[in-house]
């Protein structure tokens, strides 16, 4: 089963200044969202395999959208994250089926490498509700400067029979990181942690 997409939204946020300090070059975060039909809204379905396949499709599609919107090469991506919000006719497990089994592999192709776990969040929700997508360094989860998040919201989604799926990618960490810890330049990026 492939995703029946009603809309795709792509958002890019650049931070040029923060608390009076110039950020040069600006830090940039992108998030791409697909609003899809939830094939299992309305009643309990035991086998969620079709949603897992949809997750694989969207991991690549939305990852590519983020990279294109940032205008960077895949290797220039520094952090990523994923999230899903299920409309009221579905169940939380639908989000898990999309996000966890298969979405990561094609996303890692889109951002090149991606040794680290893709941080995630999920919830049930309705149109206009905010979904916070967590962000972490793509190759070394302990890189402290890249822990962040980005908010997405669409006024008309997800409707009861829909799921909103989000993938976020950045080319940078927080604007003014100064709480120490492992840095981007010191990360080895082999084990996904450091």
């Amino acid at each position, binding site marked *: 089963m492939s995703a029946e997409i*009603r809309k*795709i939204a792509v*958002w890019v*946020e*650049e931070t*040029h*200044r923060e608390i009076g300090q110039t950020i040069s070059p600006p830090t940039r975060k992108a998030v791409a969202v697909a609003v899809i039909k939830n094939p299992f809204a309305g009643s309990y379905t035991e086998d969620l395999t079709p949603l897992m396949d949809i997750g694989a499709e969207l991991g690549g599609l939305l990852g590519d959208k983020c990279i294109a919107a940032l205008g960077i090469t895949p290797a220039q991506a520094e952090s990523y994250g994923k999230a899903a919000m299920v409309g009221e006719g579905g169940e939380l497990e639908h989000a898990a089926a999309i996000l966890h089994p298969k979405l990561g592999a094609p996303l890692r192709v889109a951002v090149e490498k991606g040794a680290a776990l893709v941080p995630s969040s999920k919830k049930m929700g309705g149109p206009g509700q905010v979904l916070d997508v967590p962000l972490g360094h793509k190759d070394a989860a302990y890189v402290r400067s890249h822990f962040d998040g980005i908010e997405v919201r669409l006024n008309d989604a997800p409707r009861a029979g829909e799921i909103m799926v989000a993938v976020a990618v950045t080319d940078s960490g927080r604007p003014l990181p100064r709480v120490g810890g492992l840095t981007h330049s010191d990360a080895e990026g082999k084990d996904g942690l450091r």
Partner: protein
Amino acid sequence: MPDVIIRKMVTSIEEIFHEGGPRANTPLKRGYVMAVIENPYAGSYVEDIQPFMEDLKPLGLEMAQKLLAALGVEADQIEGYGKGSIVGVGGELEHGALWHAPGGYAMRGVLGGAKAIVPSSKKVGAAGVRLDVPVTHVDASYVRSHFDSIEVGLNDSPRANEMAVILVMTTGSRVHNRAGGLDAKDIKGEDGLR
């Protein structure tokens, strides 16, 4: 003349494939660009605020070009537009009106001299507030299929001493438009109305 000091810039593009009806052959694109800038007049009443309009002109041009690039279409493929502003709570509504000339004329210029008035909305609000920016046809305001609006907002903006200025563009009519009225193919495009 006050400087234009940008803290953030956001671009957001939606592609709409359907809304419960037949799938569009070409998905409708709707996009906005928002700049979060310092409000040079926040904090106290200033009588002569018009000098800032002149300063905003290059920003209007940059934003219109950025939005067009993000939409990935030629200027002649833009069929609807609008503009808006949100003034942080340290300012006054009148500051938002400074965006009319620089935002509107910049966008019309980039689009090759669009004929219709650029519809607009404005408000004073705190960080995270949403603004519905109206959309109408670029050459004939009465084209009914193109009346729309795009919701914009950013979780940390505008702060009290800031204002957010917004331009929006669309590539076509509402995805399932069927409410009649003046059709885009029947316009004269001379007076900006019909």
